[in-house]
């Protein structure tokens, strides 16, 4: 189709309006941010000047001015949090105690459904498998790789190779791997890498994504492929941050590489390690794109986020969808608390 300016005029107009609105809003905010603090500052200055002119000691009343100031800066974030997080969370929790059309209260029915319906129990088990395996595998691979390439000759190239998948979206990655797992009948030309390998070793092509639980593991491989890069980069930075004198001292004491790893490296990078594991765990709990693109939750591969979307938006079962969402929320909370506490300890310690 040709690009016709007259035809596209309304869209272009909308685009222009959008840009103007963006500039107006963001510009206005920036201006405000600039004007308000300087107004506060000027007022304080005037007070100080007035006070010194009077000869009286300056009135020390920073609390009120500063808290108003702090409140002003917090306002946008608090508002966004209220609109985007707190309100939906409360509403979702309420909806989880209602029926599919959100008309009647049904008590805990959606929650008993969740733990009694075979297909949903399967979903919960799958999510558990994901959460156990992905952080473990991704962190292990990331750590091993970080240690192996540390101070190697082509370190930066080697690292970027592993880090590259991070740049690919989950959907893109899932599509790529779907081709790897693709199946064509026996005797036909295989378009899937995995089946081609199997066939060239004299095996029979297999429908990789059909058989549970292998299919879940194969999907997990995709996530590990993406997340290992993240783990590697963070851990590699942590390894490099280990003070050289500690390493040197250990060397002088004649440690074996094994001892070096467990006695020096591991304790030193422990905080980074925890951050990586927790971050990946949270990302894994929320995994949706890979499953939806890879198998659409068929063949017993569904996970909580995918099932939640299906129940709420496709089946019109708001109650059951919300119950799954609340459950997911409850699962994520301890990890977040652990993370925060850990960060706080680090800061204090």
């Amino acid at each position, binding site marked *: 189709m040709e690009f016709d300016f*007259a*035809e596209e*005029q*309304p869209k272009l*107009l909308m685009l222009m309006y959008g840009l103007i609105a963006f500039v107006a809003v963001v510009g206005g905010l920036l201006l405000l941010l600039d004007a308000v603090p300087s107004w506060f500052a000027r007022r304080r200055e005037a007070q100080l000047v007035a006070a010194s002119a009077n000869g009286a000691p300056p009135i020390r009343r920073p609390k009120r001015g500063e808290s108003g100031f702090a409140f002003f800066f917090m306002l946008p974030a608090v508002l966004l949090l209220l609109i985007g997080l707190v309100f939906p969370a409360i509403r979702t929790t309420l909806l989880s105690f209602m029926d*599919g*059309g959100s*008309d009647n209260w049904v008590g805990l029915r959606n929650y008993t459904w969740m733990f009694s*319906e*075979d*297909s949903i129990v399967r979903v919960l088990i799958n999510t558990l498998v994901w959460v156990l395996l992905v952080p473990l595998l991704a962190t292990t691979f990331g750590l091993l790789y970080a240690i192996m390439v540390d101070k190697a000759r082509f370190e930066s190239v080697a690292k970027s190779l592993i880090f590259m998948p991070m740049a690919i979206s989950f959907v893109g990655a899932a599509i790529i791997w779907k081709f790897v797992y693709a*199946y*064509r*009948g*026996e005797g036909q030309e295989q378009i899937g890498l995995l089946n081609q390998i199997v066939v060239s070793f004299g095996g029979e092509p297999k*429908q990789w*994504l*059909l058989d549970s639980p292998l299919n879940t593991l194969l999907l997990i491989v995709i996530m590990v492929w993406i997340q290992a890069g993240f783990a590697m980069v963070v851990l590699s930075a942590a390894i490099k941050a280990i003070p050289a004198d500690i390493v040197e001292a250990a060397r002088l004491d004649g440690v074996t590489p094994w001892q070096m790893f467990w006695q020096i490296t591991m304790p030193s990078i422990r905080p980074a390690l925890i951050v990586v594991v927790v971050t990946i765990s949270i990302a894994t709990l929320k995994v949706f794109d890979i499953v*939806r693109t890879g198998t*659409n*939750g*068929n*063949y017993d591969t569904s996970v909580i986020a995918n099932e939640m979307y*299906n*129940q709420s*938006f*496709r*089946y*019109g*079962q708001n109650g059951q969808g919300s119950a799954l969402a609340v459950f997911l929320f409850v699962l994520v909370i301890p990890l977040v608390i652990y993370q925060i506490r850990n960060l706080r300890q680090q800061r204090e310690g």
Partner: protein
Amino acid sequence: MAVSARPRQALAVAGVLGLALGVAACGTGDDKKSDKAGSAECAGYSAYEGHDGKKVKIYSSIRDIEADRLDQSWKQFEDCTGIDIDHEGSGEFEAQLGVQVDGGNAPDIAFIPQPGLLKRFADSGKLKPAGADTKAMAEQNYSADWLKYSTVNGQFYGAPLGSNVKSFVWYSPKTFKEKGWTVPTTWDELIKLSDQIAASGTKPWCAGIESQDATGWPATDWIEDLMLRTQTPEVYDQWTTHGIPFNDPKVAEALDKAGTILKNEKYVNGGFGGVKSIATTSFQEAGTPITTGKCGLHRQASFYANQWPKGTKVAEDGDVFAFYFPAIDPAKGKPVLGGGEFVAAFADRPEVQAVQTYLASGEYANSRAKIGDWVSANKKLDLANVPNPVDKLSVQILLDQKTVFRFDGSDLMPAAVGAGTFWKGMVDWINGKDTATVLQGIESSWPK
């Protein structure tokens, strides 16, 4: 919108000029109406006039070429009445419609392909009942069989629009002629033909139910077609409304009958592999082995005509064509499974109702049919206006007196089943789960 405003301004100028010159006034001409109104081609639209400059938003699952064709089909209506129809198609229609409606941002009109979904919106009071004019027009042009699908608790919510016939088996007339195979007209002949093709070393059937997030639906069509063939239409209705449980022995019988083809390693899956390859073969490419002679038969709806590789001639004497999926007991009539979308409205402004009425009219059906690739059960549809041979056959079947038409069952059931566990159940069933377990699973998921 500026696009349509510009020509209309020009039209208005022309209209004023026309008046100034003292040209004989056109019809009910007033200066607000576009100048085309009153011309010969607009004569048929006088009933819909009086809404100049009004805008009607339509939301549907129809995209790309099909959407362009829609725009084209009501172009004249827009020009003559001055109503601006703004159509938006979405690939996530079913999910997004609910979000829009709940968010207080409902479209004026939605083309809803699932009576089950329509019922959900009607029950929650979100849909507006159709106006008297629309109802009269629909009753005039569509059979009661069709209208009952958009009638909820005695309220009529909108006329059908496009339709499709699902009880078709695609084949290659060319291959059939070469091999001396004949088109079967009974179930027994169909099975005999399957055996004959199997004996010749080709797998007779090919199928595929992969369809991204709708994976499984082609298999539900199979089951529905076999429900209509092994049971009476009344039992079918009980099944879709949960009058009988989903794991009733009658349903199991239909499933097992479908299994004699779909789960028969001797019969499937031509060009792709074994039974399990059905689950991962996309519905778009499932029938294509017919063109290369690797498969003989493919059961799929009339709209599959658009899926053949470029250059494939779809005609009775061409590369591929379809025959009616035969009945098991011809004495029970000619069961036909089909689908279609319904023009339901979330607003009852007069211009919205005018559009609803127009879309139910014979004029619209013929206008849309002429553009191609479209079937409707509209009684006013003239066969001569249907260019494509498969569509012609579909219209003939839909308007045939002997036809016992039933709507796609999965579209009638609550979405949790019809677009959820039924699809998933079929995937599991193809993937090796037994009939009883699958049916039990679907039954337990039926919303209470």
